[in-house]
């Protein structure tokens, strides 16, 4: 799966460049995220702005990513599209993750 990574403030921002994290893509997502975060020590901000759809397999892969990165590092989420936000809300996973509206509001908030 195509993920891109950049540093923004205290975060390593990982952008998912794919429209779906579904059953067919969940393992590839987990492996790509493992590769991207293997070397880093920063907290991770997962940018889901390009992702239109996740299913329960995709949600499970994001939870697995949280465990993979942690416990020393955080994994926060940003830019959830409507159907993705719905899955987080219904499963109450929105209470587990810190979810930012945009990439810009994530870094300053942490500084304050």
């Amino acid at each position: 799966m195509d993920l891109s990574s950049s540093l923004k403030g205290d975060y390593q921002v990982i952008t998912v460049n794919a429209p779906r994290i579904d059953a067919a893509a969940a393992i590839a997502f987990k492996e790509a995220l493992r590769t991207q975060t293997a070397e880093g020590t920063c907290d991770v901000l997962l940018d889901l702005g390009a992702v239109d759809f996740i299913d329960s397999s995709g949600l499970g892969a994001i939870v697995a990513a949280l465990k993979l990165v942690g416990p020393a590092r955080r994994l926060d989420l940003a830019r959830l599209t409507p159907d993705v936000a719905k899955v987080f809300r219904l499963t109450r996973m929105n209470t587990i993750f810190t979810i930012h509206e945009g990439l810009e509001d994530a870094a300053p908030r942490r500084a304050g």
Partner: protein
Amino acid sequence: MTAASSFARAATAKHPRHLCLKFAATQDGVRSALGDLRGFMQAARIGADACGTAEIVMAEALNNVAEHAYRMSGAGDIELTVRLTQSAVSACITDAGAPLPGLCLPEAEAPLDGSPQDNLPEGGFGWFLIHSLTSALTYRRVDGTNHLAIEMDLLPASEAR
């Protein structure tokens, strides 16, 4: 020009309210069917929120068939029929895979309930999402085939916010 636009209006008025698909019980087969479902619902002018809800429910139900009924073998087909009414989406999923355990629908327990924070669940969300987003759910095993009938309201009240 006039003829073309009146044709377009007629075509819109007669947009199909019924979809019937048959596809291989693989993750790619399911993904492709979900694309067809999305296109069908958009053509029928169903709102984005309801389209999303239907896609989530169908993704979970169809992936369950591929992963559990056919055990990821890909050796089998899934049939999906969808009918739209003014207020609801009615769908039926048929497959010839293994029956649901105990011949009954799994419970709709919320995976996060009772789960310690340091041991978050990575699965078990599928049936919870299906139950949360549907108004009726019926499972039957008939002559070696599974039939899952699903009803979803098209009214905004179908999901508590």
